């Protein structure tokens, strides 16, 4: 069963790869628009494992990856630290919800990209702008899902907790958070996905390193193979981060392990 699932999951990527091979082999699309998969693979290997600074883009990966990961981690952590408590509070306390919801929903309607010019003026180019964009974008799904999770906990469970001797404060950790855990994790996963998207946006503005910066540099120098390498790497790393996030939550929390 497990093997069958994996095969199904890989079916579409493999078909796409096959199509790409065919298109390149038959010469349907010129090389400068879509290079042959082999070329992209070799460029990718050189980008990741090649000796640094031998030629442009070789051996840059580790440096770029670390820079991007630091930005995503920082932005995502900020969004989590603000989003979960605020979401839980809004979900449980009508006063907080009324206070926060109009402002937050108003801001949510602003497309993330609109923040870019403002962030560049406020924070300049680089780390701070990217982290700000990532945090802003990841905040909303994390907040919204924590809110929904907290709101959906039936009063019955608080009553059960209260009669079993759980105080209101302890109930937050003993009942509310575990009950809301599936929603909280859904929010975190959405937030993580968006984080990588906005990372690239933040890095397109001319920072010297990062996976988004590589894509932009490659466009400037007409290296479409490197653009594709960057895109594929971001897809792969995004997927790994998602799996990792779920694994960490499951390792840390019983309620995550047993409910998702």
């Amino acid at each position, binding site marked *: 069963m497990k093997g069958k699932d994996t095969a199904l999951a890989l079916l579409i990527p493999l078909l796409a790869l096959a199509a790409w091979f065919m298109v390149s082999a038959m010469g349907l699309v010129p090389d400068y628009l879509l290079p042959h998969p082999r070329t992209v693979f070799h460029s990718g290997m050189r980008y990741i494992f090649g000796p640094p600074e031998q030629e442009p883009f070789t051996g840059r990966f580790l440096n770029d990856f670390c820079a991007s990961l630091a930005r995503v981690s920082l932005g995502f952590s900020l969004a989590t630290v603000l989003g979960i408590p605020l979401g839980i509070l809004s979900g449980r306390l009508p006063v907080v919800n009324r206070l926060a919801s109009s402002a937050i929903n108003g801001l949510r309607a602003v497309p993330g990209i609109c923040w870019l010019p403002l962030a560049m003026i406020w924070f300049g180019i680089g780390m701070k702008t990217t982290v700000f964009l990532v945090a802003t974008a990841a905040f909303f799904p994390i907040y919204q899902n924590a809110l929904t999770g907290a709101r959906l906990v039936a009063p019955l469970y608080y009553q059960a907790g209260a*009669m*079993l001797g759980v105080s209101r404060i302890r109930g937050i950790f003993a009942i509310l958070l575990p009950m809301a855990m599936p929603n909280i994790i859904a929010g975190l996963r959405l937030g993580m996905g968006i984080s990588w998207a906005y990372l690239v946006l933040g890095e397109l503005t001319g920072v010297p390193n990062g996976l988004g910066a590589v894509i932009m540099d490659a466009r400037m120098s007409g290296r479409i193979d490197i653009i594709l390498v960057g895109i594929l790497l971001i897809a792969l790393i995004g997927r790994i981060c998602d799996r990792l996030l779920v694994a960490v939550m499951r390792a840390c929390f019983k309620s995550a392990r047993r409910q998702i």
Partner: protein
Amino acid sequence: MRPEPEQGGARGGGTAAMLEIVGLSHFFLSTAGAEPVLHDLTLTMRQGELVCLIGRSGCGKSTLLKIIAGFLAPSQGHCLLEGKPIVKPGPDRCVVFQEDALFPWLTVRENIAFGLNDRRLTRQQRHREVDRFLDLVGLQGYGDYLPRALSGGMKQRVALARVLILSPLILLMDEPFGALDAQTRDEMQELLLNLARERRQTILFVTHDVQEAVTIADRVLFLDRNCGRICEELQIELDRPRDRSSAQFQLYRSRLHQWLRQ
């Protein structure tokens, strides 16, 4: 922990009132104004008594139970448990709900041990205590299951065990077997009766099932929707185990049916 009932025996002092409710009224506030649910209700329960509360839906049975549990503050009047006023929920008045209210991320064993967390027990003591109650409700071997893997009847056994382990002064049951099939319900009633007798447990049992009331109760109370208080009361004087086909049993049954049809 409180002394075990079978050891001490005189937990509430024999025939002294365990629960005393005097002049209790409750209103729900709605757009149309205050809607009375309970009006000047009086109720006394002795230690070790199993009292069934019946009434038609919407008569305030559940409201009364919530007030005794401390989930709801009454508009007027007071409830005394062993002479002390009830102000908030606590482990001395435990509820078995109709719906499944087990914590879904905890195993059967962890659910049962949940209320023991703030009692000073060693790991071993707690483990032994939980084992004992798993046995008591007939769930040996199911300790490591999650609630979602259990049938409705088994879930209610866990719900029963997790409150009995706290030795509550009074056990409040809100149509706990209402959602079970007939066969399972009979089994659960038998289990409850055995536990209640062994532990001399005081129980207030809400139901709308007349047969259930006659089967288990020492005394049946009828809560009327119109006057908002207990207006009929019947002592069930049948030997246990009770024979449901006996003429006596049928007599009690039709009497209760009459109340509900009024």
